């Protein structure tokens, strides 16, 4: 009953009067490190941040962790089967050698870690040797310099079996005699030493560890492959064919070791084989193979944004292919656009899925996200308004028209009308999808107010123009048709001179 109230008193006593001793690694850890790595070393927020407890990164050769503390760590890092993409700020300028030594000594001897102490001299020596370094380290760089000693191989006791022969489907390995059998101490499925000739099959067997949970396995191969866990078929690619035929399946597994078996055949041509597992709750893939399937290597969960039946969905963020002030709209009918509020035009059009927000909504959200759908057509990448007199022989660079983006209105279905202002003249630029056999994105530009000078609009730039006429043209799979004005073409740009009347532009897909 009294304990809850007592605790803070006792805890605060040492803090009140004993100044921090440079040797007290535990206190220093609590002060500077625990917010992210957790008081228990397991990573803050239930492991949303990298754990240090039983992490091979902080054990073994201390150089690795001294360097991370001194200069920071940037980019993705895999710790205990989970990939993190955060930012470890450098502490070298803030913490002296003896404090870094004390912290690392504490970390290396806590929470089940059992590594040797770190001395201030060691930190000093590393600091001196890396004094020229200004950038954060990347995990890849550090692993080359200081491979993880205590890391268990992804697959333990892995043995590979190699079979020569011309296989057009998966053979029954029990009927074959291997031409070579090897132990694979790296614990990675790797065909590369046998891939000098076409025509072979391989099989790997070993054991791997998982925590409790429903884990997602993935397999991709050229040619066929099968993944079996505890003797059960999990993923299979049967036929001859190239990589890119990714198969995924989630399997509930109990904590502990599980039997691992991969079967593979290569008929002719290219080879590829990637096998991985995404642990429940983890964003990253733990690879069992030397090949890492490139299409599957993103480190965030998918959060696909989708319009509802009666309303478009909007996404202001960094969309790859347009400017940083991108505004994405996903309309019903699987028609999507990215409008640039810098350059005042729809710059990307695409069909199918809208966008995966998981990238920007996970960790710090570093980078641009490409459209998720198909046939992404970049129709424009220049400031879309210019004075007509400047746009006679070319679309002007260094455009003096200075239009301003004034925002947008959304109608009841979430369709936008952007407002662009040039002097006293305003242009209302509306978008809506019209359903039908050939769904169209219909854009209406309505001018208002007095023009000081006539203004032109760029409809297409930097794109292969097909079938140009005064009323329509084609850009990739997108057909653009104009009503209320005539398109003119200047050095590959499609330009519309804006008058005082409304113009309608229809974008359709062939």
């Amino acid at each position: 009953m009294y304990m809850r109230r007592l605790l803070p008193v006792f805890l605060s006593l040492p803090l009140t009067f004993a100044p921090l001793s440079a040797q007290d690694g535990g206190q220093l850890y609590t002060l500077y490190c625990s917010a992210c790595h957790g008081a228990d070393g397991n990573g803050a927020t239930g492991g949303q941040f990298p754990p240090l407890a039983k992490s091979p990164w902080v054990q073994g050769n201390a150089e690795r962790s001294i360097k991370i503390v001194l200069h920071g760590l940037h980019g993705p890092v895999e710790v205990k089967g989970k990939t993190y993409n955060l930012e470890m700020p450098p502490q070298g300028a803030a913490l002296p050698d003896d404090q870094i030594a004390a912290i690392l000594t504490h970390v290396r001897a806590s929470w089940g870690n059992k590594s040797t102490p770190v001395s201030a001299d060691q930190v000093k020596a590393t600091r001196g040797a890396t004094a020229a370094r200004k950038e954060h380290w990347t995990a890849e760089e550090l692993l080359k310099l200081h491979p993880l000693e205590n890391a268990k191989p992804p697959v333990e006791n892995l043995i590979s079996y190699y079979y020569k022969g011309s296989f057009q489907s998966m053979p029954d390995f029990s009927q074959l005699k291997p031409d070579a059998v090897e132990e694979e101490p790296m614990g990675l499925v790797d065909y590369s030493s046998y891939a000098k000739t076409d025509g072979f099959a391989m099989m790997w067997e070993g054991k791997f560890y998982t925590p409790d949970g429903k884990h997602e396995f993935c397999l991709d191969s050229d040619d066929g492959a099968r993944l079996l866990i505890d003797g059960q078929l999990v993923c299979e690619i049967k036929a001859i064919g190239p990589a890119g035929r990714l198969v995924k399946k989630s399997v509930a597994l109990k904590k502990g070791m599980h039997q691992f078996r991969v079967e593979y055949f290569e008929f002719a041509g290219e080879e590829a084989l990637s096998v991985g597992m995404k642990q429940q709750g983890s964003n990253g893939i733990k690879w069992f193979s030397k090949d890492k399937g490139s299409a599957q290597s993103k480190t965030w969960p998918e959060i696909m944004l989708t319009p509802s039946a009666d309303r478009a969905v909007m996404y202001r963020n960094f969309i790859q292919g347009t400017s940083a002030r991108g505004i994405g709209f996903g309309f019903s009918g699987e028609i999507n656009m990215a409008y640039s509020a810098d350059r005042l035009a729809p710059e990307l059009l695409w069909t199918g899925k809208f966008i995966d927000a998981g990238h920007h909504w996970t960790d710090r959200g570093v980078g641009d996200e490409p459209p998720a759908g198909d046939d992404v057509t970049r129709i424009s990448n220049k400031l879309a308004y210019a004075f007509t007199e400047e746009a006679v022989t070319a679309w002007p660079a260094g455009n003096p028209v200075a239009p301003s983006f004034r925002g947008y209105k959304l109608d009841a279905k979430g369709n936008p009308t952007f407002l662009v202002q040039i002097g006293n003249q305003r242009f209302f630029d509306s978008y809506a999808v019209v359903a039908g056999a050939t769904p169209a994105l219909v854009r209406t530009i309505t001018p208002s107010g007095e023009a000081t000078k006539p203004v032109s609009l760029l409809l297409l730039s930097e794109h292969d123009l097909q079938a140009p006429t005064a009323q329509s043209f084609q850009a990739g799979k997108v057909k653009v048709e104009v009503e209320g004005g005539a398109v003119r073409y200047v050095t590959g740009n499609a330009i519309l001179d804006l008058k005082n009347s409304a113009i309608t532009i229809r974008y359709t897909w062939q």
Partner: protein
Amino acid sequence: MKFFSLYLSTALAAFAAPQQSDFYQRQEIPLPPGEIMEIGSVALLPEQKVAVATRRGDIWICEGAYGDDLGKVTWKKFAQGQHEPFGMFWKDGWLWMTQRPEVSRIKDSDGDGAADTFETICDDWGINGDYHEYAFGTEPDKEGNIWITLCLTGSGGANSDWRGWAVRVTPEGKMIPTCSGIRSPGGMGFNAKGDVFYCDNQGLWNGSSSVKWLKPGSFQGNPTGNKYHTLANLPAPPEPVSGSRVETERAKFPTFVPPAVVLPHGKVGQSPTGIVCDTTKGKFGPWADQLYVAEQCHSQIQRACLEEVNGIYQGAVFHFLEGFEAGLIPLRLDPSGIIFSGGSNRGWASRGSKPFTFERVKWTGKTPFEMLTMFAKPDGFELTFTEPVDAKAAADLANYKMEAWTYILQSSYGSPEVDKTSPKITAATVSADGLKVRLKVDGCVKGHVHHLTLSNIKAASGAEMWHPQAFYTLNEIPAK
């Protein structure tokens, strides 16, 4: 058995230890089920409604957040798809916000409860796709302008226009570049007089995080974005020498305004964010005109008591509220005496272990025994207390301890505490009413953080002190 009874009596004596819940009631406000509410902005609306904006760009309006029964809270989604708004307020029927690409104001024109009109007020600063190019905005100042701090690119570069600057945006959308030298802001606010402050985070050219005063025309210490002065024909900001001290460099450059109050890294938080001034006239306790500073990493709210000496702000920071459920970002204080805060720990960890939170804090009406203020004097400091002190203990020099230090002003990340000294307290004079103690100190150092620790000083009533530490940033030593 003897041991046990001794232990028990110690426990009973400690029973009176002050607890936050004695003085302040912290409550989580229920969030819409299933939604990811990583709150980056809070705005107080008429009729006791509260709007929040999330890092995912959703805007929600909450009813019932002021009520006694938080079970009755309801939420309505007002907008989606915005770009990480950090700073939002309500004015004349519009919700104004500073989001990454622009200042916008939005409203519901057709009365269906969702925003349909989104006006871009100003988008004159640069962004290039770097996630760290955040923009934090204030509520309007006395002239109606919004102040915005523009974080550096990647927090260490300035690759887009006006990165590393504070700008003002008029209601008509004109952008006025106002201060240089900014690194990585976490939030902004005003003091009672209407001067503008922001939090800058430990890192390049910031030895520790601190609360800084955005005096118009000032330089805040980080020269990375200096080059943009040419865009507006402004004078070139100072180029301080790396490896120096703020105190040294500001003697060379009169526009270099030192941090008003340093929040010593690790000791008083690690990632300061939102700032509000207590203008509640006593509805949140006796801390009139003091600043509350939210803290993301430590999930706390600190209390800062500032004064102006020789035209420069300086003052003390005290630990205050803690135990919030996630890393706090925005801070709002309703005049009725309710703090609203929210936060997230996505990408930046926090002691509060939930991924996001929305909370309120109310004063219980009971005042803790605390140092109310700490002000600089020509020969030391003057403390005032929230209630009369036990005069005997407060006059005993053994009950005070002071250490002082500063930080290296340098182009690398952060700084250790350097140039440490131990100023000696030579006299502690208790006022007749017991509310003040005048400390005479030998060896105060201009430019240093002065860390005062009190021990064994109780109130005359017997109450124990809640937070016996103060950290005073002594930019100027007053002449009288």
